[in-house]
């Protein structure tokens, strides 16, 4: 059964220095409030897994939380580079980070395989790509029925996964709606999981086949209103495309970034995404 905790307590309990952490949300429902809490608690040496690092990992990398990033597309969507990720990879600021990169298909299948309790994902991928030459976690197997060569990658099995969702009921069951990405898979694949939600309600209002994650598959639930901003929550508030564009200038420079972090994360009174 999930436990209702404050975001502070949930992160303190489940995110350990050195842990492998997946904070998912495919453009939608990115758990920014939780990311900021991780930064505030000065977690270190994390292996961060995310298909699209997005601004959330740019912030965490810039704040020095990461030692390794596993990803498949590391940009600011529709805007350009993730400057903090690049600065860490290219110049080692604030610390050197290792990267391991995949394609989206590989990571999506690896999350699926993690949720399915398997050690590997098998798919038709990486044909002709040079990614296997720089990622030793990409292997190939032969189909015993057809002889076809198929790609294999290890499944994703994080120590802790963190996602944001619309709402939980009082028993701790969670509804995720809209672009659901690999969020359910991230939760099911992880040893522990934290779900931040916009609100707690009496009745989820879910249709028969809705994406509902049962309470007993979640470790902790924390209320974080607007916890996905500047990403968005379908049915609650829209994406701040403006902040995504502004981030380019903020993150381009170490000083403006540090300043932003101080003002919006370290000295912020609330848990909200913190876009000024």
């Amino acid at each position, binding site marked *: 059964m999930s436990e209702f905790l404050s975001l502070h307590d949930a992160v303190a309990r489940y995110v350990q220095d050195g842990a492998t952490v997946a904070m998912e949300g*495919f*453009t*939608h429902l990115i758990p920014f409030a939780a990311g900021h809490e991780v930064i505030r608690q000065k977690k270190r040496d994390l292996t961060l897994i995310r*298909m*699209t690092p997005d601004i959330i990992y740019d912030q965490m990398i810039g704040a020095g939380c990461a030692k390794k990033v596993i*990803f*498949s*597309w*590391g*940009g600011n*969507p*529709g*805007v350009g*580079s*993730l400057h903090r*990720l*690049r600065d860490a*990879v*290219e110049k080692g600021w604030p610390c050197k980070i290792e990267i391991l*990169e*995949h*394609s*989206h*298909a590989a990571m*999506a*299948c690896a*999350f*699926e395989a993690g949720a399915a309790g398997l050690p590997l994902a098998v*798919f*038709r*991928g*990486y*044909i*002709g*790509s*040079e*990614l296997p030459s*720089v990622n030793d976690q990409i292997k190939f197997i032969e189909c015993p029925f*057809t002889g*076809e060569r198929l790609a294999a990658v290890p499944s994703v099995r994080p120590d802790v996964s963190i996602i944001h969702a619309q709402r939980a009921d009082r028993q701790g069951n969670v509804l995720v709606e*809209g*672009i*659901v*990405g*690999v969020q*359910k*898979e991230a939760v099911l694949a992880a040893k522990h999981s934290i779900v931040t939600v916009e609100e707690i309600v009496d009745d989820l209002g879910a249709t028969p086949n809705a*994406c509902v994650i049962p309470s007993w598959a979640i470790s902790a639930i924390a209320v974080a209103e607007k916890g996905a901003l500047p990403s*968005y929550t*379908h049915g609650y508030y*829209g*994406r*701040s*495309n*403006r902040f*995504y*564009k502004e981030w380019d200038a903020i993150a381009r420079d170490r000083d403006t970034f540090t300043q932003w972090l101080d003002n919006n994360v370290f000295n912020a009174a609330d848990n909200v995404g913190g876009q000024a």
Partner: protein
Amino acid sequence: MSLEYTSSEMMSVTAARALENGMTCFVGIGLPSEAANLARLTHAPDVVLIYESGTLQTKPDILPLSIGDGELCESALTTVAVPEMFRYWLQGGKVDVGFLGTAQIDRFANLNTTLIGDYKAPKVRLPGGGGAPEIATNAGEVFITLKHSKRAFVKDVDFVTTLGFGRDGKGRDNVPNIGKGPTRVITDLCVMKPDPGSKELVVVSLHPGVSREEVIEATGWEVRFAEQLESTPEPSANELEILRELKARTERAHADA
């Protein structure tokens, strides 16, 4: 009766025209998304647009900034989980055409979105593969659109993120269950197609007012031109109007949010 239009508009309209009505198209963000939606709003109302965020058959009124804007989900027939998107819909063979952009492309239409320079010590770190490596091999065929420049059109890409026809043009030979690969590249100067034999990209059509020299100048290899070199048809007034409205709507919406 020549209309006023920019080379970017020429590129978008030409890219849009490549899509046929009823095709299912896996859409990359940026220029491909602009072209695909322009197609949907003009000659191809039943083109099926699929974005990797899981949004199936989406009809956004404004262009999404990201691959997963709320608009895409709200206007979709349905939205599936991302593993399902890549497994059932892309790998499952339901996509006719993958529409991609890129940072670098070489003469065999291999795409590089990983980095410039050496992998261990990159000069410029690019975003990475994203959906492209499997879109390029699992879709029936691939259209590519990007601006023409010597920096982008190189003889050999620094890194093959995504297979065109391989470093020797033979990368798809004898590979089972693979799509046709890139069948056209649409730029702001011209349209290129792979030579049926060697698979090297050849200019098949020049946009109005563009000279061979301009294309040669903007291409990083000794580019060849088709014997029957065509002139790309101009955009129509209707296409330009719809494209401009789409972009204006998009700009207003993104400024507000």
